[in-house]
């Protein structure tokens, strides 16, 4: 039952959230909007992976979630660094 709930309840809702976020990504209008969308998408990805690890009963996937969490941060920092430097010009 838990599996079905996660598969047919939670994962679709997370996926819909991802779609919404992705729509923001497409709309922009600013690059930073896209960066934020990306960051959020990664977070949703972490959630999906966590749920998926329950569904498949493999905790190995949580390692991926961990890496995602660690590294998403770097991307955001890099983008803001870059945009700020560009603004400096």
């Amino acid at each position: 039952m838990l599996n079905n709930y996660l598969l047919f309840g939670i994962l679709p809702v997370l996926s819909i959230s991802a779609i919404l976020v992705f729509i923001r990504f497409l709309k922009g209008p600013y690059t930073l909007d896209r960066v934020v969308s990306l960051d959020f998408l990664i977070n949703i990805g972490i959630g999906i992976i966590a749920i998926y690890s329950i569904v498949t009963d493999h905790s190995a996937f949580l390692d991926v979630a961990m890496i995602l969490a660690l590294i998403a941060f770097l991307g955001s920092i890099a983008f803001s660094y870059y945009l700020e430097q560009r603004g400096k010009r």
Partner: protein
Amino acid sequence: MEIIIMAMTSVGTLFILIAAIGLIRMPDFFLRLSVTIKAATLGLGFIMGGTALYFLEFSVTAKVIAIIFFLLITAPVSGHMIGRTAYFTGMKLWKGTILDELKGKYDRKTHSLTSDGDDPSERTPPVDEL
């Protein structure tokens, strides 16, 4: 137990959904940023908690704690970094914004921020994407 897991994941997912809606609906960038940063963190926290409960294994719990801990540190920091960049690059505030005490506090050359003074030097024009 399953019920608790379902509840936790549901709450978490709901928070994420709300944040996603926020990201779509919010009228200016700062509002969107503000909404996503914490809702996502909170939502993920619930989901991870549910995961920890499901596995009930020491190593998994540790991993979950590590992830949450990490998110707690990084999410606000990246929010701050992105937010200041947004402000700096001249992102427009929503028309309903009632107060902007940051206006004119940035030095345009060095990007250093003063704590005081009302230097009315203009903000950089919006630098948007090519």
